[in-house]
């Protein structure tokens, strides 16, 4: 490989130049060294790839790699131009053996690029070392140069393999994330293509390696900036698409809820009529003085009574609440409570529009109060939670209540942080409610513990 270990590039040329007199030996040495160099380089790339990609650890791959190495070494001995590209392309043949193609492209590009970079570095390091030790590169120390150079490169490649393994173990999920793999693959592909292009150009127009390095740095910087921009645009686009989808879903959800509400209202009307029909039918049945009929009727009524009251209630009156945040939080907490086997009911005798309170504060306060209520009645056999929205001409009151197993004698204590019936540390909730409501001029509250726990928020319209 040409830019790699300098033996076949600089050193050999120097050797050739110095030892023109003993041409034969030199050619002999040159041939050996070059063959070893090519073979070892190709092997290194494959080795790194096999080390970082578990899927490649199979006998078929080893065999193929051996054949490929022999083929490539032979090819490079005969024709050395574009060897990096050739290695990479031949390398792609291994795609046949793997199932996770994208991940393979990542590992093979990583291996190729790492090799290219570290062989530059290895060559430079070895030359510097030789220079510092005042060692001449001659016929015999050419081997030494080669050995030292390859050792440095090998060490670097092993370091790459180890760091890749560590990275893989720490961030396993990112390696299976399709989007991220796509980004990495395209970034690596762009870097590789750029490098090959620049290298080929430099080769053909005889540009020096220093200039090549600068060109590479500039190119990589541009690519980094481009890549960053691309990723930013990509993500902002995805976000926009997501936001759009969410708003669509939201709209559909709203339609669904309003349909549900209207069909629930129909059901309620039906239940109302049905119950009243049963009741007045009952009057006739009891007046008829027919014991068998009365008995049968009472049985029917008993059954329908339980089925009519049992699972109703959680959607009652929800359509009358127009304040979205309140509606959402009540719906949410009620379904949590229902799952815990708690009876819930919402009272709203009249439609209630937007409330004169900041929706975030209202959501926080009602969330805390409902959570407290759920916590308080969970585990009680006859636990009940009720919320009422009471409308007055100039005020709306929200009443949050839950049944109490044991009465509370001193309601004032509940409002101080850290003191509740639920035990130490649980009182933060009501203290927070107080902190949130106290500064609001048009909002006052009440707390009652007579027969049930009751928190009333009075919101005066401004």
């Amino acid at each position: 490989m040409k830019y790699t270990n300098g033996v076949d590039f600089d050193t050999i040329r120097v050797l050739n130049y110095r030892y023109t007199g003993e041409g034969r030996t030199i050619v002999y040495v040159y041939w050996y060294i070059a063959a070893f160099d090519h073979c070892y380089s190709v092997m290194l790339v494959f080795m790194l790839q096999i080390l970082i990609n578990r899927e490649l650890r199979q006998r078929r791959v080893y065999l193929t790699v051996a054949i490929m190495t022999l083929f490539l070494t032979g090819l490079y001995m005969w024709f050395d131009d574009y060897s990096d590209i050739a290695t990479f392309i031949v390398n792609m043949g291994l795609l046949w053996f793997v199932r996770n193609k994208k991940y393979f492209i990542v590992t093979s590009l990583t291996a190729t690029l790492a090799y290219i970079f570290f062989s530059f570095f290895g060559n430079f390091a070895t030359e510097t070392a030789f220079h510092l030790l005042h060692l001449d590169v001659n016929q015999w120390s050419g081997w030494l140069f080669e050995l030292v150079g390859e050792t440095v490169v090998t060490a670097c490649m092993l370091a790459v393999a180890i760091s890749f393994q560590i990275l893989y173990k720490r961030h396993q999920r990112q390696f299976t994330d399709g989007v991220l793999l796509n980004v990495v693959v395209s970034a690596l592909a762009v870097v590789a293509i750029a490098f090959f292009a620049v290298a080929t150009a430099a080769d053909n127009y005889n540009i020096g390696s220093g200039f090549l390095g600068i060109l590479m740095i500039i190119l990589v910087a541009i690519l980094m900036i481009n890549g960053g921009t691309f990723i930013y645009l990509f993500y902002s686009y995805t976000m926009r698409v997501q936001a759009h989808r969410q708003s669509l879903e939201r709209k559909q959800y709203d339609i669904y809820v309003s349909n549900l509400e209207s069909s629930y209202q129909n059901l309620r009307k039906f239940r109302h009529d049905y119950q009243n029909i049963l009741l007045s039918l009952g009057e006739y049945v009891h007046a008829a003085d027919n014991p068998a009929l009365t008995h049968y009727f009472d049985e029917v009524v008993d059954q329908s009574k339980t089925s009519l009251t049992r699972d109703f209630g959680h959607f009652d009156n929800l359509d009358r609440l127009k304040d979205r945040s309140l509606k959402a939080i009540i719906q949410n907490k009620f379904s949590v409570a229902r799952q815990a086997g708690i009876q819930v009911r919402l009272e709203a005798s009249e439609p209630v529009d937007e409330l004169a309170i900041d929706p975030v504060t209202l959501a926080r306060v009602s969330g805390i109060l409902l959570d407290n209520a759920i916590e308080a009645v969970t585990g009680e056999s006859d636990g009940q939670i009720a919320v009422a929205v009471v409308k007055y001409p100039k005020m709306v009151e929200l009443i949050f209540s839950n049944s109490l197993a044991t009465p509370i004698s001193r309601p004032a204590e509940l409002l101080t942080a850290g003191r509740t019936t639920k035990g130490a540390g649980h009182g933060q909730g009501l203290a927070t409610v107080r902190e949130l409501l106290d500064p609001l001029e048009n909002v006052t509250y009440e707390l009652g513990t007579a027969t049930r726990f009751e928190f009333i928020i009075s919101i005066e319209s401004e």
Partner: protein
Amino acid sequence: MLKTFVVEDDPEQLATLKKIITNHIMINDFDMTLALATDTAQTLLDYVSANTDTEGLYFLDIEYAGQQLNGLELASKIREQDVNAKIVFVSTHAEMAFLTFERRIEPLDFIVKDLGQEAVKAKVEKDIRIAYERYNKQGVANKAMFSYSKGGQLFNLPLAQVLFIETGTSRNKLVLHLTDRIVQYNGKISDETVAHPELFRVHKSFLVNPKMLVRVNKQDQLGYFANGETIDIAIRKMHDLLALIKQSQLPVKLN
């Protein structure tokens, strides 16, 4: 005489209620009449508006199909005319809005129709007895009331529940401590001191119902209530408070 009223839009149920009420009044020989039993809410409202001195016991349904008024509106309009109205809601469980009615109407009772005829009958009879007892006591001991207002709405409660009023944490807000309730409302303690002569200002931030005090600690300048709540008493006011306690012979322990 205590008048009884029924509004129920189902004719059979109306007839049954009528029967239960007239029978119970007759058997017990109460000084009561069934003044009106109707299926339209407006009829009752017209009656109450025409006879402003009515004192009554009202059995109301909550939803009247096809009528403008519903039970809640009817009840609140009755309450405006008849302050001592004893209102009982008779309806199915699904229609009841217990919290709302209690807050707005302070009804005497809720009777859930779905519980069956026997249960309804028993509850109607019990409510008649309770209403009658209260009606008779009403004249004797006119209970002292306390009221506060919120958003243009007046809330009444017996003075015997009031412990004290305290200045709140934020400006212009007062905290009313009742025996089993804390009420925050907008107001100034100086205005409340003038508005409620039955309460005594013991401190710049406390206005107290002296009848509810159980103990006064002169040394620590503290006042105690039955539920364990305490208030500060200013040195200047201690003397006046003790004089008041002595003068009204209040059962307050001193130490």
